[in-house]
């Protein structure tokens, strides 16, 4: 039996053109509901910014913070968004290195979500600080006068790690964007064209250029992975090194936070992909297969995360010290934390993970959207339930125990942050293609089939 040299017909100029048209449609054809959505998000963002301004003028007294709950909503939100930002690298770098074909449509959206959520996460410490206008002091800024930051403090490790991560993520996106920028350059005129030309850096698609672009992509993927792990580990050490807070001082925090971040980040990317699919009509690119694979990945990640959560609680209770027991009682059984804890466990694991066992759910856009949104509700609560009850029940001197109620200002700032990220991602889609055009085309070229008996099995070409 002889098989033909190539079973599938590969891309033709028509297919190429169709891909170009489809994937640049978000840039050139903007439906009116897009602007309505962006406008609405801008409004909400402005409201959040207004609340933040009010807070800067009047001081942190307008929040619900107190002694000893010195960290609460802003830090919760900071950790949450840093967590979301882990999706981009998780998907792009790991899946690129492991040559998973199904990653192709998802990568750029994931990376962009990374960048904008990192930007938002960076604003949260500023909101949180007592004197944000002096934030530069945590950098080696005043060294001319021999005034250095304290390198023993995790709050100095933080900006270093996040700064590195932001820089490398932007590079990562940019390198992958260059061939697509050339497509945009060829389809625009005037000043816009000049802008794209500048950004495309003279891309002509020569073999040498492709080769360099590919090497840069793989190198960045490999180099960004340690950065990715370090960022959330360092964020976790903001808490874990705090020996005086029993709920924070746990050795498992670093991997627990990293895996939790991947859990919530990948979920956020799935949600985002499904929303984009509806807004930009990408039915042909974001396939049930894509989210099916993401769903499987999520199932594994979620279960690993659950193992770490179990270890964290188990070894918290392990010694049965009074203050730790008081903390866990507050966290799990005392109103209103009991309700939040219940929602957290159900939303982050109890509901979505069993659902993902079913292929029907993993391949349904509706159910994947529901489950992934649920994960992120749960994961936001997780950070809240780590931070606030631990501080409210700090140490055995029960005279100081307290609780926490967020103020309207804090809630407004948090909501404003969410719409800020959504707005930036939508605006990005207006300026750059949100699905990597060249990557999709490469996938089309490599796609093949083999025949086994009567079955046709999808296959890929490998050029090892």
């Amino acid at each position, binding site marked *: 039996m002889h098989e033909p040299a190539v079973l599938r017909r590969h891309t033709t100029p028509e297919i190429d053109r169709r891909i170009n048209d489809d994937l640049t449609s978000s840039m050139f054809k903007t439906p009116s509901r897009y602007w309505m959505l962006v406008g609405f998000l801008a409004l909400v963002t402005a409201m959040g910014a207004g609340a933040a301004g009010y807070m800067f003028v009047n*001081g*942190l*007294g307008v*929040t619900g*913070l*107190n*002694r*000893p709950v*010195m*960290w609460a909503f802003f830090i919760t939100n900071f950790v949450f968004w840093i967590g979301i930002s882990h999706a981009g690298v998780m998907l792009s770098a790991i899946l690129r290195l492991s040559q998973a074909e199904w990653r192709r449509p998802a990568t750029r959206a994931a990376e962009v979500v990374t960048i904008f959520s990192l930007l938002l996460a960076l604003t949260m*410490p500023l909101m*949180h*600080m*007592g*004197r*944000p206008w*002096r*934030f530069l*002091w*945590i950098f080696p800024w005043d060294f001319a006068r021999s*005034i*250095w*930051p*304290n390198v*023993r*403090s*995790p*709050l*100095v490790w933080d900006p270093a790690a996040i700064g590195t991560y932001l820089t490398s993520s932007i590079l990562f996106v940019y390198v992958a964007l260059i061939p697509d920028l050339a497509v945009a350059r060829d389809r625009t005129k005037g000043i816009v064209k000049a802008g794209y030309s500048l950004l495309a850096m003279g891309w002509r698609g020569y073999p040498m250029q492709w080769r360099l672009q590919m090497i840069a992509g793989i190198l960045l993927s490999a180099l960004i992975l340690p950065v990715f792990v370090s960022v959330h580990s360092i964020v976790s050490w*903001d808490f874990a*090194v*705090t*020996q*005086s*807070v029993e709920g*924070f001082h746990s050795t498992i925090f670093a991997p627990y936070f990293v895996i939790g971040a991947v859990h919530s980040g990948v979920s956020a990317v799935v949600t985002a992909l499904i929303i984009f699919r509806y807004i930009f009509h990408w039915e042909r690119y974001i396939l049930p297969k894509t989210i099916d694979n993401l769903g499987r990945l999520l199932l594994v990640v979620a279960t690993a995360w659950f193992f770490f959560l179990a270890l964290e609680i188990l070894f918290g209770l392990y010694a049965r010290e009074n203050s730790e027991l008081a903390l866990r009682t507050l966290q799990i059984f005392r109103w209103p934390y009991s309700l939040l804890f219940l929602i957290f466990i159900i939303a982050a694991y109890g509901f979505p993970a069993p659902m993902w066992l079913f292929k029907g759910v993993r391949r349904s856009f509706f159910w994947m959207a529901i489950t992934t949104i649920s994960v992120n509700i749960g994961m936001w609560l997780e950070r809240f339930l780590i931070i606030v009850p631990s*501080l409210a029940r*700090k*140490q*055995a*001197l*029960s*005279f*100081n125990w*307290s609780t926490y109620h967020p103020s309207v200002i804090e809630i407004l700032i948090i909501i404003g942050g969410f719409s800020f990220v959504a707005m930036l991602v939508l605006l990005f889609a207006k300026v750059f293609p949100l699905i990597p055009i060249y990557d999709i085309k490469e996938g089309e070229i490599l796609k093949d089939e083999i025949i086994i008996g009567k079955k046709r099995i999808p296959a890929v070409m490998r050029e090892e």
Partner: protein
Amino acid sequence: MTTQAHHAKWTMVVDSDRCTGCQACVVACQAENNVPINTADIYRQKRVMEWIRIERYWEGIEEAEATGDPSKVKARFLPVLCQHCENAPCEPVCPVFATYHNNEGLNIQVYNRCVGTRFCANNCPYNVRMFNFWEPVWPESLQNQLNPDVTVRSRGIMEKCTYCVQRIRRTELTAKKEGRLPADGEMQPACVQACPTDALVFGDIKDPESKVSRKAANERRYRLLEVQGTEPNLVYLKKVDPHYVEREHNE
């Protein structure tokens, strides 16, 4: 010999057996150190600023409920202020060195360096670090009462007990000017000075003859949350309980 004062190790002894919970120390501290006035609203917000506070615990409630005898309930007072730990957890976590340790055993807070991350407050097991949530304001009648030797802190920064470092320095300077060493008991933080029962004693623990050294050697001595390994420069003396019964450790 004049440098001896610089190598002192300032320590306080709190004798909880003598504490009546009268709060005189709290008021004295408030007046001496320009600590903002705590209104009822501030209490409701749980943002009380007290460099020294009297923690009040009730003991014997279960016993009283069981026997129906309310006299079984005992109030216990624990004055808590910055413990000036030798191994202070608040110090390494500050990103800008706004808090550090000096060679006299004092934990120093540099107000104008503080950026207000509140990490130190989290990492203080004693909850003695106060954050200025609001810009401090004093009623008109108290404007002239502010102590000129102490900075008025702005909002957005941390503050805490200094062992009245301004008084320490003033005494040292006076003594130096007069060409002598500061005598034991010559420098007293405001709280110590105000304490009517002498429950608080302050001095240099390095001087074996000082009152504080003698009191700190008492067999009733303990230090707060010792398991944290913070090595506080503040020693507590246990309450002497006439009704004390030997009970099992793990009760």
